[in-house]
């Protein structure tokens, strides 16, 4: 009885507030927009029965998503932005993780905390901090003008560059921590062995260290790539009007156009897009767990 209640309470909560809402999104994606309150059609009516209701549902919204350029361009551009910023985060994060793993042991907990600390501070604030830096009269331009690298201010805020910087900045801990975990476990004797056997330092890195850290690199890349695909805050604050990301399209479809059915269809397609990387990520994690055993 007690076991039954223990299972039932969280189960029922998740069914009611996770699975059922999801089913409603699917249903909404098959509905049509209507000038009414709430703004969609059909409404379920007990008197008419379920079959009349189901007959009203159709795939018009999905056809609409393929017909209008905006949507597939937004999907492609989200994929592109997520891929580029994952690569940039890897380029910034790997040397940091490497440096942390090679730092004296008594420093490592402090370095770890320094990486995690920004992660606890508000996401919104960390994105906001870059608005003052990247604007035309911001600190970066002031600094570059002062050093004489450039003669006229660069436009960075409200372009995709600002979005990349914002993403790398906010998601960097997700990239560093798994790589650090993989590198820290590595046996330093392996490198010495490679060097004794005539490897140069660089080739020892490429032939020994990097392959051993690959699970961490893969995990970190997915941990950045997956959430960035649906990102809304960064493109809307740092990006420009031409920065297309699917999270932003969904938001605008819902709040500005008040087209709930199309917003739901966008959500369904975004979810389908996410399934592939999530399944790949899970397989990588499982393989890793089995290898550890």
């Amino acid at each position: 009885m007690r076991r039954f209640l223990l299972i039932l309470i969280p189960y029922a909560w998740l069914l009611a507030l996770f699975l059922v809402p999801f089913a409603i999104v699917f249903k909404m994606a098959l509905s049509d927009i209507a000038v009414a309150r709430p703004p969609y059609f059909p409404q379920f009516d007990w008197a008419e029965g379920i079959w009349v209701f189901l007959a009203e549902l159709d795939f018009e919204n999905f056809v609409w998503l393929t017909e209008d350029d905006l949507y597939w361009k937004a999907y492609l551009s989200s994929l592109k932005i997520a891929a580029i910023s994952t690569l940039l985060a890897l380029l910034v994060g790997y040397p940091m993780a490497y440096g942390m793993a090679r730092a004296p042991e008594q420093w490592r907990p402090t370095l770890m905390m320094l990486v995690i600390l920004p992660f606890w501070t508000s996401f919104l604030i960390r994105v906001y901090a870059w608005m003052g830096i990247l604007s035309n009269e911001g600190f970066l331009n002031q600094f570059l003008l002062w050093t004489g690298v450039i003669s006229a201010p660069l436009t960075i805020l409200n372009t995709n560059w600002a979005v990349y910087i914002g993403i790398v900045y906010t998601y960097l801990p997700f990239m560093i921590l798994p790589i650090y975990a993989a590198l820290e476990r590595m046996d330093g004797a392996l490198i010495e062995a490679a060097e004794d056997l005539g490897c140069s330092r660089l080739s020892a890195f490429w032939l020994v260290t990097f392959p051993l850290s690959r699970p961490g690199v893969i995990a970190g890349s997915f941990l950045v790539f997956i959430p960035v695909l649906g990102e809304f805050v960064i493109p809307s604050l740092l990006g420009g009007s031409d920065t297309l990301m699917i999270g932003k399209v969904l938001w605008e479809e819902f709040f500005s156009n008040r087209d709930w059915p199309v917003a739901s269809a966008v959500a369904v397609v975004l979810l389908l897009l996410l399934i592939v990387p999530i399944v790949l990520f899970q397989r990588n994690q499982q393989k890793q767990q089995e290898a550890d055993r």
Partner: protein
Amino acid sequence: MIRMSWFNTVSLTLGFAFLYIPMLILILFSFNESKLVTVWAGFSTKWYKELFQNEAFLSAAWVTLKVAVLSSTFATVLGTMAALVLVRAGRFWGRTLFSGMIYAPLVMPEVITGLSLLLLFIGIGLDRGVLTIVLAHTTFAMCYVSVVVSSRLVSFDRSLEEAALDLGCTPLDAFRLVTLPIIAPAVISGWLLAFTLSLDDLVIASFTSGPAATTLPIKIFSAVRLGVSPEINALSTLMIAIVAVGVISASLVTKRQVLRRQRDVQAAQ
């Protein structure tokens, strides 16, 4: 053997500069006299004074705090239960669905979670306000809590609990007196995680809040869209300070606990 090479020193220095300089600039310019956030015009705390006179921000902060305390507490209770189910309950009907529902919200884009919950609340005719935000935050935070707690539960030695049962504890007492104290650090960090997730959330709160209940992130977002302002800098500085004090003191406490445990182990030997 262990010696910092120049490459590691440079990459760590540059990396941490990248992580911290933006926030330092933000903090510095919250003390700026001028309304212009990019030109230094002397030290002043006037933006803090203005912030504390801003009714809209204060009431939003109150709503946010209320939502965060309530939702993280519910999420901790539900998440701990879910962790017990995941680790202990063995096989039951729909187990795969259950663990799927625990892990799925972790990777779900916030826009989708927000949209789906909003459609639910409208479907059942629940007025949007503090209650709906609490329900929404509890749902996604409980999944994080259950992941944190279950990772601790996996390494928990069940024979301790069995010993308590043999010595005449009821199962509930055994949980309260033996299991809970041992998993307490994980439960507390789960609560803290749920609390900060709730404080931080903009997207889900925007979907599930009504005009009666605006949270601080929603307020900040709408102010920030218009551009940078020293008042927001002051607010951000306060929030960064609170988090930094919290995280650093939590890590000091755990460090002391670890030291004490080491001493106890040594004394026992």
